[in-house]
């Protein structure tokens, strides 16, 4: 599906891989390529496997490795999932996370499209400087901003509300999206815009009717990336929200499912699994866009 979309900027022509593969014997390739790759796959995916099977295990099996092999679910149960869905505020957290992520993503996309177009194409006075400072903003980590932001959020009366998150998430989303979109806009030929200008189109018309349709893959990349970044955000959500019904999934699962010193690993893993699944599903549909977004933001 995504193959014919021309995901990448011009310089990117992937060469046919394994050009000299014929120099490797099959045995040697097995040892030098497939074996290490299998080890990587095992280590990188094992935590997810463990998370998933723990979710479906009964408490007897979770804490007893000797009776049955711990690597499989012998007596599958939906108990942990039922507990998560009906005895905790998980549905509310899911709704909050969705609401906050979608809203802040759209706010950021709107602001970023305009900013990226202005910096990349309008070339106003100081646009280069503005472009650089946006990149600089991307390098400011949330862990040095959360304390002053917490005092601001409190003074603005937004503490413990979704608005606190909707307004602060764009601080890391806008720099990222703008930077990504600048790369996409750069790859659109100037001549198209010049033709439109000669035909009497305004800048706004050019942006809406020529540049944006051509940058759709970039918009999707930026959008799903921004959505994922907001979904995964933790430190702001932990600091700015305190009541259970306003929490997001990462914070809710961690703070509400752990009570005291007793860890209910079954329901904790169910929470981790069900908090990860939405992004994992989204990811599975848009893998190419994720890769393009990640490598695109790096290459600029």
């Amino acid at each position, binding site marked *: 599906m995504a193959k014919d979309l021309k995901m990448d900027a011009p310089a990117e022509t992937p060469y046919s891989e*394994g050009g000299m593969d014929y120099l490797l014997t099959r045995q040697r390739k097995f040892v030098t390529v497939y074996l290490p790759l299998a080890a990587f796959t095992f280590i990188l995916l094992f935590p997810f496997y463990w998370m998933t099977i723990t979710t479906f295990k009964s408490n007897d099996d979770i804490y007893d490795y000797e009776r049955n092999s711990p690597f499989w679910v012998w007596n599958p149960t939906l108990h942990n999932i039922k507990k998560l869905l009906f005895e905790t505020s998980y549905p509310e957290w899911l709704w909050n996370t969705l609401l906050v992520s979608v809203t802040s993503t759209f706010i950021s996309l709107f602001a970023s499209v305009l900013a990226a177009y202005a910096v990349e194409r309008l070339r106003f006075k100081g646009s280069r400087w503005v472009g650089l400072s946006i990149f600089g903003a991307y390098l400011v980590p949330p862990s040095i901003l959360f304390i002053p932001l917490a005092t601001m959020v409190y003074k603005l009366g937004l503490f413990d509300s979704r608005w606190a998150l909707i*307004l602060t998430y764009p601080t890391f989303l806008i720099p990222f999206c703008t930077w990504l979109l600048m790369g996409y806009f750069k790859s659109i030929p100037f001549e198209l815009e010049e033709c439109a200008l000669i035909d009497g189109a305004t800048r706004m018309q050019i942006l809406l009717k020529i540049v944006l349709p051509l940058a759709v893959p970039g918009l999707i990349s930026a959008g799903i990336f921004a959505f994922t970044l907001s979904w995964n955000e933790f430190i702001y959500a932990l*600091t700015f929200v305190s009541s259970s019904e306003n929490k997001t999934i990462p914070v809710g699962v961690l703070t509400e499912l752990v009570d005291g010193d007793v860890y209910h690993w079954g329901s904790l893993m169910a929470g981790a699994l069900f908090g990860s699944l939405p992004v*994992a599903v989204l990811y599975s549909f848009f893998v190419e866009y994720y890769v393009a977004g990640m*490598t695109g933001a790096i290459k600029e």
Partner: protein
Amino acid sequence: MSKSSSLKLLTRFNNNADLLGLIFMLPAASILLVFLTYPLGLGLWLGLTDTKIGRPGVFIGLANYESLFHDSVFWLSVYNTIGYTAVASVFKFILGLLLALLLNQNIALKSFMRAILLLPWIVPTTLSAIAFWWMYDSQFSIISWILIKAGIIDSYIDFLGNGWNARFSVVAANIWRGIPFVAISLLAGLQTISPALYEAATIDGATRWQSFRHITYPLLTPIIAIVMTFSVLFTFTDFQLIYVITRGGPVNATHLMATLSFQRAIPGGQLAEGAAIAMAMVPFLVAAILISFFGLQRRAWQQGSKD
């Protein structure tokens, strides 16, 4: 007449790059100025006051930094952060590069492999950290169980109860999470290298190592520099993994500057002190960015690029 002149005005307005640029920048700039630039300054100011939660503070100069200077826990967190970043970044680089080289081979199910290996980076860190927390459990750790069954160790490892064990455990979790990002980014760089170079080198009798050392590595350095800058930046300011797995324990052994800053500011209520710790991270970050920036510039110049 007036209609056409107003139309003219509108056209001029529409095509005036400076004015239009200003308007287009407005939404992004206002959000970033209010919620990023201002808090950055506010953080600097808070660090110079004695603000606590629920009590506005007064200016006390560098007193917070002075007390931090004599605070052994703060210094422990600084050393932890540097060690955590250095060890994790080195391993992420080596393993990430290795994985990128493997994925660049002609293998079956290539794009599928690439997709599933990126998962640790896509999934919320907090939630995968909870999975690690469970795998590091002192009584039911599956890692210990496997090692015992394999006959490598005799008793369960106390992953999070002992200072050094806890440090290695969180570093391992961080490496696990960071490898896919490094690998996939470097893979994108590898795919732009022409196979003709390798063919020519092979004909000239170069070994695989020589091909890597003299073709792959030099052509990959610009991307390596950027990827590693980001990696160092995010590792240095890491918060989630530590907060979930150890909360800085046991006895502050795994506190990073970010988690200590949170600990003092939010549950501890000492906003000013927390802000001072956060600000103390800035010089390190600036140093990391400058090193990579100048490193990059030099390479751009070597490659004859003007910009």
